[in-house]
């Protein structure tokens, strides 16, 4: 059984500044900054030596950084490393609120087979 990671994947990823610390980056994206680079699961992407730099790291991971010009807020897109949406089959980082606003982690259902169904009223 996979242990839940410390980071919980959640959105939106909106920022009012780009000078994030590596700890903030990990909390936001699940990517941990280690001596060997930015790491998530078994994947590590090498980074330039020196202090953590958010913009360089996002670029290396293929994450879009898009600014809404008038008020300077940024949104961060997901990583695009492999050309595919999924880079891991692990879902233990994922959580969303239930209809009462309480966080529900997919990892709470480990031990059962699960079908996650995306639907919408439109």
């Amino acid at each position: 059984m996979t242990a839940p990671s410390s980071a919980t994947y959640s959105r939106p990823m909106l920022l009012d500044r780009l000078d994030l610390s590596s700890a903030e980056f990990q909390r936001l994206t699940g990517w941990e900054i280690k001596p060997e680079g930015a790491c998530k699961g078994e994947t590590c992407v090498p980074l330039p030596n020196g202090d953590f730099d958010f913009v360089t790291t996002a670029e290396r991971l293929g994450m879009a950084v898009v600014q809404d010009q008038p008020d300077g807020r940024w949104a961060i897109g997901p990583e695009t490393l492999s050309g595919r949406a999924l880079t891991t089959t692990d879902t233990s980082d994922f959580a969303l609120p239930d209809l009462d606003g309480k966080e529900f982690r997919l990892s709470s259902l480990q031990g059962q087979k699960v079908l996650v169904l995306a639907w919408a009223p439109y």
Partner: protein
Amino acid sequence: MRQELNPLGFELVDVCLEMGGAEIARPYVIEAASTHPSLIDQAHAMDARFGVTNIPMAIWIDESGSIVRPPEPATPPPVGTAAESIVELIGDRAFREKYLARLRDWVTNGPESRYALSPDQVLERSQPRSPAVSQAAAHFELAQHIWQHQGLSERALAHFNAAHELEPRNITYKRQAYSVVGVQRSEDTEMGRFRQAPEAGEDWPFVSDFNRDLIEHDPALAKMLGLI
């Protein structure tokens, strides 16, 4: 489906991709009398994290929390009468039966099921993801954030349209945005959410609409629905 398979160690999780929030999903969930988890995904995180691009799509996850089938078209959920009426409309009973048979096979046979994919197959069969897809996700997040605070302003529209142009295959980004205009222009809110294209001669603030998309990508269905 859920009632039949739950005793075999199966759970269903509904995720409603609706930037308007839980109160829009709630009536449908109440009507369906669901006893399984129902979640709300205002930012369409399912798209960014897993590669969901349309509804209904489903992900199969095994007992260890590992995906065995990536997001792919699924049978409409038992959420509300609208889903049922869509099944009737497009005559999708055969797909529904086939999908449920495959699901039963996996729930019964686990990794021995021919429908449980290997990890490599799961990654390979997940949706394509270019840098443009990442940009589209970022624009969609800005759009939904601005919409929540200002309504459908010029800035919100610009970000919705950027998302639609950068990732035209993502139908949830499109239909979510179309539904905002549909609700604005309809007296019946619930029906308005399904209004996804302009009437003849009507102005339309988006670079695409559902009817034109359908004519381009599924002419047979467009013809069945009387669009051509």
